[in-house]
């Protein structure tokens, strides 16, 4: 599968990640949108200006970008809990991420950002903007990477003694293991603990990882925390609208609402209900696409929302 080494990610100096990028990442479809798919981290590009024909080719005329419903449940509400796994979480340098992730999930519920997923319905009702964070757990034993979902589920079941009995539990496992050659930053999946359905997600340690970095230059968060927040937003939105097996909402290419807007940013910062601000990718909205009110993703399809 996707196992080749991402040389640039490993070679990128931390200072380069922290410094404001001077490459033109303006979307060719909307000057107010930042598209990090255009910033490849190579030699200075001095701005990509897509030829009109080239830009048109990226929109794949005739293809249907809408997500469709596949018969499964959605998460009407979510009870979130973070699990920090690995001995590094005992280091002082990791404390900002623990506190920051708690603030991220704590402010997500009821935010305009959470509302971007509320148009989707499933066999059990409709997604709402309600998410409730119940804090975090720390497991200082040696952590695993993410290449086996069963291992991550086992960690969730080990740490969470009483999963949400209604099946609304979403357990986000933050490993201290770096991505290495993996070609993904995070994922979400599902399973059961003691017969209780659980949603869970896995996240690599993204410190100094340019391949998974949203390039937040606000100075509000460390690079590693900002990176985790961005992919956390992605995974939570997907879990709420497409809990695994059987699926609910994704498009003809298997892309969920987070995938369809990955690495594009409709706003410099997104404000959460607790006053915190984050640089987060948008989430796909069929309604926004149909109404032409969304911002364009990297293929120019105007269905992404940073808030609602």
């Amino acid at each position: 599968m996707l196992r080749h080494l991402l040389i640039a990610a490993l070679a990128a100096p931390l200072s380069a990640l922290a410094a404001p990028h001077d490459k033109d990442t303006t979307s060719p479809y909307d000057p107010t949108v930042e598209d990090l798919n255009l910033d490849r981290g190579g030699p200075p590009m001095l701005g990509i200006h897509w030829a009109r024909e080239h830009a048109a080719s990226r929109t794949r005329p005739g293809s249907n970008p809408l997500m469709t419903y596949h018969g499964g449940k959605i998460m009407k509400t979510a009870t979130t809990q973070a699990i920090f796994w690995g001995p590094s979480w005992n280091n002082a340098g990791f404390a900002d991420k623990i506190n920051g992730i708690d603030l991220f999930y704590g402010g997500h519920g009821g935010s305009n950002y959470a509302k971007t997923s509320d148009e989707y319905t499933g066999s059990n009702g409709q997604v709402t903007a309600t998410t409730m964070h119940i804090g975090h757990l720390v497991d200082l034993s040696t952590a695993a990477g993410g290449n086996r979902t069963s291992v991550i589920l086992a960690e969730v079941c080990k740490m969470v003694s009483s999963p949400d009995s209604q099946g609304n539990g979403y357990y986000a496992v933050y490993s201290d293991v770096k991505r290495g050659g993996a070609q993904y930053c995070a994922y979400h999946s599902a399973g059961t603990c003691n017969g209780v359905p659980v949603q869970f997600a896995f996240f690599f340690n993204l410190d100094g990882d340019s391949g998974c970095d949203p390039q937040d230059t606000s100075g509000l968060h460390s690079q590693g925390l900002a990176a985790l927040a961005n992919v956390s937003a992605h995974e939570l939105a997907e879990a709420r609208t497409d809990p695994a097996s059987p699926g609910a909402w994704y498009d003809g290419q298997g892309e969920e609402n987070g995938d369809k807007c990955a690495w594009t940013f409709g706003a410099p910062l997104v404000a959460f209900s607790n006053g915190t601000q984050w640089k987060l990718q948008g989430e796909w909205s069929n309604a926004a696409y149909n109404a032409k009110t969304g911002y364009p993703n990297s293929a120019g399809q105007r269905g992404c929302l940073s808030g609602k």
Partner: protein
Amino acid sequence: MPVRQVTPAHRARASFCISARARSLAGVTALAVGAALASSAAAQPRLPPGVDGSAPAPATATRAVAHYLDLERALAAALREHRREAAAQMLAPEFEARSGEALDAIGARAWLDAQLRARTTPTVVRDLAVRELGDLAVVSFFVDAAPVRGAGTTTLYVVDIWRESDARLMARYEAQPAHPLRAPARPRGRE
């Protein structure tokens, strides 16, 4: 917010306490072990039916994967829809293609001619991986072509060399694997 911390030392202490208690209560050991085993079995994590737990589920692709997936899809769409000019603009002037079925490389014009002559069938780009080497990116992936007239799905393994600075394809190498990695029952979002 509630916080519980489990360390290896904590677990070691817990294990010792259970052992000590078991020694002092030898008469109930068998019952305790039986109950513990039953409890352990019930607490087993389980994945949904059909999920083998070995591969990551739908994942957030890295920026590099997302970027080149876009480019590969755009090129495939241009070829499939016979938009020659759009496809040509994605090829570098020095583009060449090699395959496992011919000795010599072919240039951009001949490759485009061949691609545009081919039967139009839906194709899926999947399991894409990227290795970035300065201004070059080595992009490998599978392409599944939909069955035609009762034939099975045709799968090619493709390695593309892209130049990052102008997003142009410099070279393509392709072959039909004898035992291709099977396409997932449900797309993984990286196709």
